[in-house]
């Protein structure tokens, strides 16, 4: 059985752009996250080095990963919204 979504919407011309942008941002975040794992495994003592505001690398990197996810999410939403307005504008009522 195959059926459509729970709600209806029009054509989203920005979809390919959003998917591509999402993949790029995902890869970027993956690399930052992988860097965190690699330092933990290869040189755990480096995580104890003080880096900023008296915080060691472990805390700064951990907070950084959380804040980076939030900031990247806001940027992603802004760029997607802009592209949606640009490419879907004539449709008017498009909600996707």
């Amino acid at each position: 059985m195959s059926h459509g979504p729970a709600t209806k919407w029009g054509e989203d011309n920005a979809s390919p752009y959003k998917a591509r942008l999402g993949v790029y941002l995902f890869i970027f975040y993956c690399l930052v996250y992988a860097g965190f794992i690699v330092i933990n495994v290869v040189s755990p003592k480096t995580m104890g080095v003080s880096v900023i505001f008296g915080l060691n690398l472990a805390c700064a990197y951990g907070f950084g990963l959380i804040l980076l996810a939030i900031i990247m999410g806001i940027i992603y939403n802004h760029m997607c919204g802009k592209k949606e307005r640009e490419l879907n504008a004539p449709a008017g009522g498009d909600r996707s």
Partner: protein
Amino acid sequence: MIYTASPLAIGIFVAFVLSVLTLSSYFAKKTQSSKGYYAAGGTIHWAVNGIAFAGDYLSAASFLGICGMIAFDGYDGFLYSIGYLAGWVVALFVVAEPLKRFGKYTFTDALNYKFGSKGIQLTAAISTLVVSVCYLIPQMVGAGDLVTPLLGLPHYMGVILVGAIVIFIVATAGMTSTTYVQFIKGGLLIVFSTILTIYVLRHGLSLKPSDSFHSLVSIPAVLEGDTITSVEDSSYQVTGNYKKDNLHFVKLDKQGIATWWHVTGTAPNVILKETLSITKAADGRVLYNGDLKQAQKFFQVGNASKIVHNGKEVSETGPLGPFEYLSTIEQSEIIRFTKSTFQDANDKITIWRQNPTSGKEVLRPGLKFKVDKGADFMSRLNFVSLMIALFFGTSALPHILIRYYTVPSARDARKSTIVAIGAIGFFYILTLFMGLGAMLTGSLDLESSNMSAPLLAKFFGIILFSIISAIAFATVLGTVAGLIVAASGAVAHDLITGFMGKKMTDREQVRAGKISAVGVGCIAIILGILCKGMNVSFLVGLAFAVAASANLPSIIMLLFWKKTTSKGIAASIVVGILTSLGIILLSPSTYGDIYGLPRSAAPIPLDNPGIISIPLGYITLIIVSLLTQKKSQTS
């Protein structure tokens, strides 16, 4: 430890329960269609959905489990916060919009949107049930664990209580009432965690956190040969010595109460350090620090043994800013406790001995996960595997994925995910301060790390304790409600309507969903009672590993690889479930903690399966899809 039920906690909990039951009854009249039952009509505002995401995701494992782990093992517990949050990036950038675009009520709908395959319906529904049940059990066990100390009820009553309330919430108004319960709970959790963190920072660090704090005692002793023969305090009599490896414990008797002490230093400067102990006597009695539980001698612990603030050694710091709080801990020394067990004649002894640990070690990885001292290849591989499963598991949890169908559009799905990341990320930052706060304010019950956050709240007053306790219950309610909606959707929508092809009217579909919710809820209650005492972190880890291995390869490949076939997806789900479950069931942790066998007897030396089972899911999907290309194209 013995806890006394707080009337205020009971009152707040009852008020919360009554309000969510009223809310559910109100929405019940509006939930007549399957769209209303499974997807809240697709009309939830993205901001409400975002906070409801947080309420759904921040389970007892996040609130009680992570805070407890940080309180006992420092930064290593915070690694869970980082991994759990990072997983939302996958959800936002890769999964959110396409899943909303292709699906209707369940995650199976999205996987099957272009195939209409019975195989996908069956395997994805089974995967949803396996992951949901693995996630449900720890929530129900956690509910039972909470109700005993806080409401004074037996474990099974807690499980039945939570089960009955959640069945009512789900069976009356499905996803609509579940959404608002999660929204309220998510909001309350974040607000009161913030308040608790502010209290922690205002309190700062102190060698003696409160007047009632039990300061640990040290006694000089005489060592003759390798045996302690007497102690300086003549009120104590030496009645036993126990030595194993490099550990030496001595049993002292004072007024008929036997306590165990840790021998430190070398002759002639031998010092006995106070420990906490539980003795399971051959006659069935259980003694806490040598006395019955009711005597309440098994005191709470957790404090700094040395505080260095702005380069000076001090006894207390006063209020600190968040960064200053962490940097002060890093320069200080904290008393942690290390557990040992041994046999003394016919008695089984469990001892927690003081383990002074530098703040530097507390605030970097290594105390729980062996990546530094004593690390080997397998311990490092385990760590990497865990971090991978946490990262990829979030966006494949069925109860999280169904929340994309409750908003009107794909754009709203994206926005609600960003709100969720903000709310959840903020909460996870707070977990570090709450966990360290518990570690340094004498808020640790060595028998149960899960009680660290409520006990921290108790340190700051009974009102905060009552509210945090009630929120802890609400946390369980919100997550269990989401899980039961997901599982009932898998049974009623995917299996009965989809796989078995039973024709039903819209009203009949809603009734099937409600009956399934009652059935799943009853099974959850039974499993919650049967699994009492089981390690809850183990089961949550299992759910993440199965979700990441069974579901994510299918979602990702369906979106990004055009040659993906229905058989490839079904095979990948089956292989993902079997390999992840198989590795966990044959792992050293399961052998040691669940089966009670030697860890070395485990045939697979890996505890976390992600690093093997996730790639295997992808490989299976690619191979089977390539092998079934012609058939699928023909069909």
